[in-house]
C-alpha cells in the first residue's frame, strides 16, 4: 500500500502539472481538494482519467469522485480494491 501511495503522489504531480510541489509536500491524509494543492474541477476529471488509464477503473458516476479523491489514503484504498491493471 505504501508503494501505491508513493506512486499515486508521483502520478498526481505529473498528471496535474503541480510543478512546485514535492512528494514530501503531500501528506497521506491531507484533503486533496482543499487549499493545499489548489486543485479544481478539471483536475478532478483528470484523476478520473488517471484511474481508467493506469488502473483500469472506470468511474461511471463522477460524484463518486468526491469521496474517492478525498486524500491519498482514500484513493489508494479504492484503487487496491478495484484495480484491474
Amino acid at each position, binding site marked *: 500500500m505504501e508503494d501505491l501511495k508513493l506512486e499515486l503522489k508521483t502520478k498526481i504531480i505529473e498528471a496535474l502539472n503541480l510543478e512546485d510541489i514535492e512528494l514530501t509536500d503531500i501528506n497521506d491524509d491531507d484533503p486533496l481538494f482543499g487549499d493545499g494543492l489548489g486543485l*479544481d*474541477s*478539471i483536475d478532478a*476529471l483528470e484523476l*478520473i*482519467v488517471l484511474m481508467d488509464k493506469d488502473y483500469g477503473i472506470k468511474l461511471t458516476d*463522477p460524484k463518486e469522485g468526491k469521496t474517492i479523491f478525498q486524500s491519498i489514503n482514500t484513493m489508494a484504498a479504492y484503487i487496491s480494491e478495484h484495480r484491474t491493471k
Partner: protein
Amino acid sequence: MDGNEVYINQSNCVTPLGFDVKSNFEAVISGKTGIQKSEDYHQPVHISKTEDELLNQKFLEISKESHFSKLEKMMILALHPLVQQNSIGKNTPLFVSTTKGNIEALKASEKADALLSKPAQNVADFFGFTQKPIVISNACVSGLLAVAVAKRMIQAGAYQNAFIVAGDVVSEFVLSGFHSFQAVSELPCKPYDAHRSGITLGEAAAAVYISSEKIKNQQNILIKGDGSVNDANHISGPSRTGEGLYKSIASAMEEAGVKPAEVDFISAHGTATPYNDEMEAIAINRLGLQNIPLHSLKGYYGHTLGASGLLETVLAIESAFQNRLIPSKGFETLGVTKPLNVIRNAEEKEIHRFLKTASGFGGCNTAVIFEKVN
C-alpha cells in the same frame, strides 16, 4: 460613419432538418429533431448529423467539384443563395466562424490541412471573394460574435456589407473531449430541465448577408446592440453569478436602448449541462428578464459549436418574421434554481425584437439584440 445602422438582409442554413430556413422552421415547429443514436464513434452516442449522401446530392446541384470537405460543402450550400442575390465587391469581406474547421484532417493527412484558414479560404475562393476571409474562432460564441464583429466593422466604415458563414461538424475529436468532461448526455439533451445531464453534439452551417442598408419590399433585421464580455472566472466552468453573460446582455440592451419588457423572446444558449443552464438562469434573473419567453434550440439541432450562435439566430429571425414562438424541445420541468419562462408551445406572438445569447469555454459570452424593421 458612426451611428450607421446595420441590418441582416438575408439568411440561410443547412442542417439535418433541411437545406433552407423555411424547411428548418417548419420542422422545428412540428417538433422534429435532428438528434438520433449513432454507433459510429468510440461509444454509442446521440448526435445530430446531416446525411452525407443527401448533402452530396444537394452539393452536386451547384457544383461538380468533389474535393471539398463536408464542412466546406455545408458552408458553401448555406452561403450560395445569399451570394446569388447580393454582389461581392472588391472590398466585401467574408467572416467565417468555426471552432475546429476540418479537424478530421489531423487523422488522415498533413497537420497543416487542419489550419482554420484552409476551409475559410476554400469557401471564399469558391465564391470569388477578393479579400482574405476573417476567421473568428472563439469557442461556442463564434457564430454570434461574428455578427457583432461584422456590424462593428461596418459601423467603423471599413465595409458597406459583409457575408458571414458559420459551421462545425461532429467529430471524434470533439466528442471524445466532451466525454472526458463527463459532459455528454446519454439521451437527447434537455435544456433547463430538471433531468438534464449534458450536451448532445450536432453539426450545421448557417449564413447571413448584412449591410448598412435595408432591402426594399421585405422585412430586415436591425442589429441593434451587442456585448461580448468574459467571466474572468474559469476556463471551462461558467461564472456562478453569470458575470460575463450579465454584462454582455446589459451592454447590448444599453446600446439598443431597450428595457426588459421590450424584449419579446430570448433565444438562449441552453446546452443542457447542469452548470451552463444554471448560470444563464441566474444572469437572466439579475437582468429582470425571467418572464420573457425563452428557449434553447439545442433539443432540435444539438450543440453545433461554432455554428450554433448563427444558426439559432437565423431560426429566431424566422420566428420573428412568422410571429410564432419556437418551443424549447426537451423541456418538461424547470431544473434551475431561478425562474425562467421556457416556451412550451408554438404559440403565435407579435415579435418586434429578441435577444440572442451564447456562452463558451474560456469564459466567453456574447449577447445581441435584434429588431424587426420594414
